[in-house]
């Protein structure tokens, strides 16, 4: 279950508002490669994971991603405080503001609402972990893109922290994948799906 610790994993203190940047960073809140997708992905995949290390990694990284989702929200919240109508109109933040004022709502920078098509939970441990390796790289690339456009050090600081965590998560999923492979036949990892083919009668290779 989840309890809440009343602090961010990493501090966010932004003194200068910037709704234009908020619009870009929004993608890490509700976009295709953002933290919400990451949390939903890993926390959903863990039920089909047959092995202990995998279950632990999926649970613990998924939980950390919820904390990152919160950090992104804090960044957007602080970037959009006390905006004037002029600032809203001139920054490109207008369309979002019309539907959400300065509330927080998960969508991509381009306006695509967050949805379950942003992630997969395939029910196959090898597939799921490969999906996750890819997801962490996509998140890293997104942070790279953000860092090219954002120059405020108070914003860059937590963004850089989040980017580094993606790299660590990538490493851990690689280790979890290795562990899954260690449980399987080294001559054919794909002989059966260990999450589904409990008895070999279901398996693909007879």
């Amino acid at each position: 279950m989840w309890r809440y610790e009343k602090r961010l994993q990493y501090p966010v203190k932004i003194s200068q508002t910037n709704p234009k940047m908020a619009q870009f960073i929004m993608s890490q809140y509700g976009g295709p490669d953002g933290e919400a997708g990451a949390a939903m992905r890993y926390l959903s995949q863990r039920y089909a994971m047959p092995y202990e290390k995998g279950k632990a990694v999926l649970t613990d990284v998924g939980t950390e991603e919820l904390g990152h989702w919160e950090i992104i929200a804090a960044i957007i919240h602080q970037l959009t405080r006390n905006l004037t109508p002029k600032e809203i109109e001139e920054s490109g933040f207008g369309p979002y503001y019309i539907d959400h004022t300065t509330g927080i709502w998960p969508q991509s920078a381009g306006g695509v609402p967050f949805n379950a098509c942003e992630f997969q939970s395939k029910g196959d441990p090898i597939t799921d972990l490969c999906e996750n390796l890819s997801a962490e790289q996509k998140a890293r690339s997104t942070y790279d893109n953000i860092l090219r456009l954002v120059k405020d050090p108070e914003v860059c600081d937590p963004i850089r922290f989040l980017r580094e965590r993606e790299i660590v998560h990538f490493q851990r999923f690689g280790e979890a994948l290795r562990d899954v492979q260690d449980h399987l036949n080294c001559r054919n990892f794909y002989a059966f799906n260990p999450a589904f083919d409990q008895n070999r009668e279901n398996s693909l290779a007879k």
Partner: protein
Amino acid sequence: MACGCNENTQTSSQNNSLFSQIPQTQQNQQHQQSQPQSCQLARQVYETGFAIDDILLYLDTHPEDTQAMAYYQRLCQLYQNAIQMYEQAYGPLSITQVTGDIWNWIQNPWPWEGGAN
């Protein structure tokens, strides 16, 4: 609060690995005589808490690494101390740590507001 200085020194000299490094602010804290500054309390919580978040993931894929376990255990101690001191000054960090006569869990600031901490 017990000073863990000796333990830190021993560990550092015995072992140069990554796991012997305790977050720096905590070492400084243990040498201070005066009350730590407010941001120092928050910083210790962030640093020890994050170190635990990080070693936790390592232990998930390396559950039998005894060095990592020892590092984790030292961090938990430091973290417990850090949150105790933080909570005394700023109120509860978790719903099981609400003390006093009123439910001050609800009180501002909340973490996304970028307040003092």
